[in-house]
């Protein structure tokens, strides 16, 4: 397994820097040799704000041939672009906007316009030779590091066979990119492994951005909703969650230390030096993550490292699951456990220890071992969907408890008249779409409420159907809405529905 690390937005960039740091030493600051990252990972940073890229020195411009590099996808749209003007005139969105400051719906809406509006598509195609030039440009930059590029004549041994997006939930740029790019990837290779590491921002006011918790939580809820409601084979293959609240309690507001710890925790996942015969391709990992599911799972990382000693398995597993959770949860609610170790550990002992602590049968525990650093043993356990307890949202420290609060805060922000979610200056088309998206009878407000109820009664998953901003206004009714109103189902409609579903399944399977 070799992952392509894509940091998106500010937080994603800081974390990606840790993963992509050159392991070689460059005495003159400029390396004369090839960049060697830990575990052989490759990657880049996608950012929407030029200023952010100027405030750092690690990433250089990919356009200038630097590595590791940043890329600003929106730069492909020229300042006098007809496509851009069309979108501004028709929808009121400026695709050249610098940064999206806690507006998760902004990029979502922009990319949906490119997908849904035939006029915009045509304009983009004639101007940029692509129906969605922003995404196309971003994917072109990422693709070069993946085995998808290697297939066309390049050597594949050093290429990445999976992608790990790193984003902050509650920002604006991060998750706005993930789903649309994943769709691009799926168009080329339906089963290409795509994982997300998402960091939920802490409670209270964020001292860096001074954004209110409720506003950030609306962004986070929209992001999570989008990621978790895509069907398997359409969306991502797993959402690894980390909670800054837990990390702030541990490290204070030292965000650099927090980033270091998140990186340290994920090392057993991305590291090389596997036990012989235990190096699964990312595809195998993907299959294990989504086995038996029709929607992407939540994966909670639990990490612990200790000085090397004899028979470390029991202690490491116990401490990882009790002291090392990066997102609060009840490990006994997990459906499966994926265990990544570094050091000399016994497979059976790992299995027994995880089974003892989680109650999982051995066939639901998947351990992968790697050689460690001198003197240290490490363990990372990814717990799949460790929630689902009735009234679990009332138990502090549970995943349900934290997400219930996040969704409630999001609803609070939506209900606050000062939030001004639908801006006055927008064209009517966008206003209607946003009003419908946020507060319509089938809008996300209702869906978040439904999600809260499902969490309260312990149902999995808590978010069900995906929801687009421009779904009704631009695309017409969704298939399942065609028969609302109580009329009889016509054969023709039924035939179309079946055809559409078969086509979707075949596309998902790459046939």
């Amino acid at each position, binding site marked *: 397994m070799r992952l392509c690390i894509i940091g998106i937005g500010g937080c994603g960039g800081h974390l990606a820097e840790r993963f992509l740091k050159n392991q070689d030493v460059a005495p003159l600051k400029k390396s004369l040799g090839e960049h060697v990252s830990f575990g052989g990972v490759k990657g880049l940073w996608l950012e929407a704000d030029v200023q952010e890229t100027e405030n750092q020195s690690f990433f250089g411009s990919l356009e200038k041939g630097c590595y590791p590099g940043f890329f600003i996808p929106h730069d492909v749209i020229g300042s006098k672009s007809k496509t851009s003007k069309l979108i501004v005139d028709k929808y009121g969105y400026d695709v050249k906007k610098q940064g999206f400051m806690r507006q998760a719906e902004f990029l979502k809406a922009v990319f949906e316009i490119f997908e849904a509006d035939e006029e915009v598509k045509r304009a983009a195609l004639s101007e940029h030779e692509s129906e969605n030039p922003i995404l196309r440009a971003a994917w072109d930059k990422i693709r070069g590091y993946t085995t998808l590029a290697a297939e066309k004549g390049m050597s594949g041994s050093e290429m990445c066979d999976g992608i790990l997006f790193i984003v902050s939930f509650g920002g604006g740029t991060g998750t706005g990119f993930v789903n649309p790019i994943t769709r691009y990837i799926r168009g080329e290779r339906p089963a290409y492994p795509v994982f997300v590491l998402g960091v939920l921002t802490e409670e209270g006011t964020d001292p860096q951005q001074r954004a209110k918790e409720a506003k950030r939580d609306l962004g986070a809820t929209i992001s999570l909703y989008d990621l978790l409601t895509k069907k398997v084979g359409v969306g991502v293959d797993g959402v690894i969650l980390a909670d800054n609240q837990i990390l702030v309690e541990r490290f204070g507001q030292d965000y650099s230390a927090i980033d270091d710890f998140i990186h340290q925790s994920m090392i057993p996942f991305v590291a090389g030096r596997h036990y012989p015969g235990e190096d699964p391709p990312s595809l195998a990992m993907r299959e294990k993550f989504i086995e038996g599911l029709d929607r992407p799972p939540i994966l909670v990382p639990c990490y612990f490292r200790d000085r090397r000693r004899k028979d470390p398995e029991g202690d490491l597993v116990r401490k990882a699951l009790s002291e090392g959770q990066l997102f609060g949860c009840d490990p006994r609610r997990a459906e499966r456990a994926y265990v990544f170790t570094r050091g000399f550990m*016994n497979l059976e002992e790992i299995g027994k220890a995880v089974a003892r602590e989680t109650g999982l049968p051995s066939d639901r525990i998947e351990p992968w071992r790697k050689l460690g650093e001198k003197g240290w043993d490490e363990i990372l356990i990814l717990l799949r969907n460790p929630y689902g307890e009735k009234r679990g949202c009332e138990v502090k420290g549970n995943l349900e408890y934290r997400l219930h609060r996040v969704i409630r805060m999001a609803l609070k922000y939506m209900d606050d008249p000062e939030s001004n979610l639908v801006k006055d200056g927008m064209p009517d088309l966008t206003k209607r779409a946003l009003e419908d998206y946020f507060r319509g009878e089938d809008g996300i407000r209702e869906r978040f409420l439904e999600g809260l109820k499902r969490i309260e009664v312990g149902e999995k998953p808590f978010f069900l159907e995906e929801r687009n901003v421009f779904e009704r206004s631009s695309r017409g009714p969704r298939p399942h809405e065609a028969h609302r109103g109580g009329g009889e189902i016509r054969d023709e409609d039924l035939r179309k529905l079946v055809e559409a579903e078969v086509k979707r399944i075949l596309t998902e399977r790459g046939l």
Partner: protein
Amino acid sequence: MSDLNETVATVQAVDISSGLASEGLSSFLAGIYSNGLLGVGIFIALLAGGVLLHRLNMDRTYRNVAATTHGGEVSPEDLREEMFTRQGSNFNAAAVAAWMLLFAAFAYFYFLTPEIFPGRNYYLVPTLSSGPVGFAAFGLFFLLLTGLAAAFIPKELYGYYELSRETKVAIMLTVPALALSIALSVQLGTIFPELDPAARGLAFLALFGSEVALLWPVYAEALGGIR
């Protein structure tokens, strides 16, 4: 007045004791570097210890992996392949240069002047020592003699260890340290038969300090394993 006398006496005592300590250290160092057999013995022992411990480290890793593998069967070749880590071409180039310089610095230190080995040294080859590029030819001879080993050692040695950036920097810093050792030895060769104990001591420290730094990852891994 008596306070002043006491202070002066204390300062003098400290001066004398620190002077004695540094003098003792200098004479101890001189005792080691002027004893050719002892120096060469330490140099070779450190190298041999490194080779032996590297072998032991590899064996121990194999045993640990086999002991935690069902059935205990692990292919040593597969394990070596998995253990190998790329350290980066800047580091590799510096490591190769450092190992070549280590052998050259060793030769310059012990075999340039008759001071340590009166029967085996550069001055016993008149055609070389009287030539215009004698010193350089002497160094080049040793570089070529040990070049193959020096080129092979870093890959074999460092590719199987996880080296921190600090360790890599320390290994890279041996290049200027060894260059300094060579320069000081050349200086000693130039002024010979004049002697310069300070230059000799510094060249010795740079040489052996570098050798320890170059072998440190192996020794550290072995120490970690013992612990």
